[in-house]
């Protein structure tokens, strides 16, 4: 049993670092499919962290949440996104407005910024500082991805990363909100992604391209 304790403690401590790594790789990614894979990896890390917390805190609710995360974020959403890419046969290029190197540098800066932002709160609230920093970093990274990437699907992925950030924040600070609320949030997230997929198809039909930055008819 000691081994599992050790693994759980280790998972809890080191998951923040893994999250940062996935963010940096996502910043450097050139193709949408790599971003989707990295997103599911991120969710997997998050799920492992919830499992370890559940193991340590012995709460059945946490197990259910972890299962939910795995089903929805690690499996369901990436498959849906892959199917969308296949159906649309759209170009895989990420069409980012900042070059790869710049994106990585910005992402690193955001990670550092999140550490500074979190410092006062972690101390006063006796929280696990690096996980809170990871949450804020995910939040800022999601925002950066949505602002810098032009492709519609990348907007979706950016939003999902941002949602992940918030979820991690909820996770680390209060060991999870009441179950009903968690389920509700997941349901909304799922519906959101589904609708975005629907709209991506609609854009495909009406505009014949997926470059969001070209959607500029409504001005003033």
């Amino acid at each position: 049993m000691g081994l599992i304790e050790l693994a759980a403690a280790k998972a809890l401590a080191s998951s923040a670092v893994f999250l940062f790594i996935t963010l940096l790789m996502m910043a450097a990614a050139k193709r949408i499919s790599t971003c989707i894979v990295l997103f599911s990896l991120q969710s997997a890390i998050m799920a492992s962290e919830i499992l370890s917390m559940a193991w340590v805190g012995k709460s059945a609710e946490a197990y259910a949440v972890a299962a939910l995360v795995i089903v929805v974020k690690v499996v369901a959403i990436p498959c849906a996104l892959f199917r969308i890419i296949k159906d649309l046969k759209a170009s895989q290029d990420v069409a980012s407005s900042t070059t790869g190197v710049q994106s990585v540098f910005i992402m690193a800066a955001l990670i550092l910024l999140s550490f500074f932002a979190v410092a006062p709160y972690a101390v006063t609230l006796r929280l696990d500082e690096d996980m809170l920093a990871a949450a804020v970093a995910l939040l800022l990274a999601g925002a950066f991805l949505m602002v810098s990437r032009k492709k519609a699907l990348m907007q979706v992925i950016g939003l999902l990363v941002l949602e992940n950030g918030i979820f991690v924040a909820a996770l680390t600070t209060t060991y999870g909100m009441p179950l009903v609320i968690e389920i509700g949030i997941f349901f909304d997230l799922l519906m959101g992604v589904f609708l975005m997929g629907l709209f991506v198809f609609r854009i495909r039909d009406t505009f014949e391209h997926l470059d969001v930055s070209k959607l500029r008819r409504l001005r003033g």
Partner: protein
Amino acid sequence: MTLVLLLLIPFLAAVIVLTCKQSRRAVRVAMTAGAIEVAAIVHAVWRIHTVGVLQSGRYLRADGLTAFFLLSAGLILALVLMYSVGYLRHIPAGRFSSPRWFYSLTFLFVFTIMAVYLSANLGMLWISVESTTLASALLVGFYNTKGAVEAGWKYLVVCTVGIAFALFGTIALYLAAVKSGVDPTSALDWDALMNAAPSLAATSNLVKLSFVFVAVGYGTKIGFVPMHSWLPDAHAEAPTPISAMLSAVLLNCALYALLRFDSITSQAIGSGFSHGLLLIFGCTSVAAAALLMVVQRDLKRLLAYSSIEHVGIVALGIGIGGPLGIMGALLHTFNHSVAKSLMFFTAGYVRDNYGTLRMRRIHGMARSLPWTSVGLTVGSIAIAGLPPFGLFISEFMILTAAFSASRYFIAILLMIALTVVFGALVHHLQRMLAGKRVDLHDRPKLLPADLTVMGICIAILLVLGIHLPRAFANILQQALVVLQ
């Protein structure tokens, strides 16, 4: 039990309408369901008025504030349904844009709105606000034209991002509550938080952080200026009844959510911080919207910007605080909903008859569409805040509160903005109304239903402008007690 009924009726209606094949049957079912829903709302409001607070199960609660907003939502729902009968009969039925889909999505939208008003738990509140976005995104993109799809896409993405920040704010508040000793299971329930609010002062900077995120999050849905960019596109491209619903009901929903948070934070750390933030948003919204209205070219976008301006005024009303300020703000939401829906209905008739909404191409309305121009003129006078109509009363209240709290800068800014708005409205209106008669021979004529809808709106505005009915004043008073 009444609260569950309120939620159940629109959900069932959405499902039933989807199943019936001919659009005529769908319209009839929708109308009856609408009527039942409005009746349920009135019954619920009356029950709340007598009982005070209704609680059913762990997640549904309704108090004075809910009653007030339910009333305006019910009224606008009735008006929109009556209007949509005339509106839909000449819309080409596309794959998705048939009356069947339209009404089922609308009732889904009503279901989510009811969920927002009735949720007792801040988490549930967030979930239902997020679901209103999802339900209305399809409605915004209903016509499947280039503009509608673009507007729908932007609406969906921007609002979801905004709402995500609100979630972060809710979580921060939950954390603050848990950290200052509130039992975690009920840490998000509104009553629990209100009772434990004084103890939240210990973690004051976390409460401030949560209110900032919530203000930015729900502010995006309300349409405060830095986060308003989706609003003109969504309101201009949506079908007219839906843009009326968006402007008159959805903005109030988001405002209701923000009010809930504002009352908790002012209980916890005093109203200085939260009202200060609201004043910042109010000033920026009123100033920017007033200026933008001057240079608008499309009628619906003009109305969308006027909604932003009026939401700014409501934010100022609450920001100034004091019994008169908040009462003025609440009354302003009600008056604005009625006036804005009247304006959107007339905009709908204009688009049907002139085929365009570009104001430079609309001439001679007074002679060719007499009744529509009466509606448009009355609407413009109302939203410009001139005496005979209700908005003058609420603006008068807000200005009185501003001056008695000696906030001269805000009051002067508000009055300059109102003058600029008045100038913009008269400038656009007089160009549209005057000119020779345009013969609109084959255009659809006004149904008696349309005339009654406009008549009801004008009547309500006049009544509220002259004399506040006793019952309505009581409901307003009860809502005020909750926010105090």
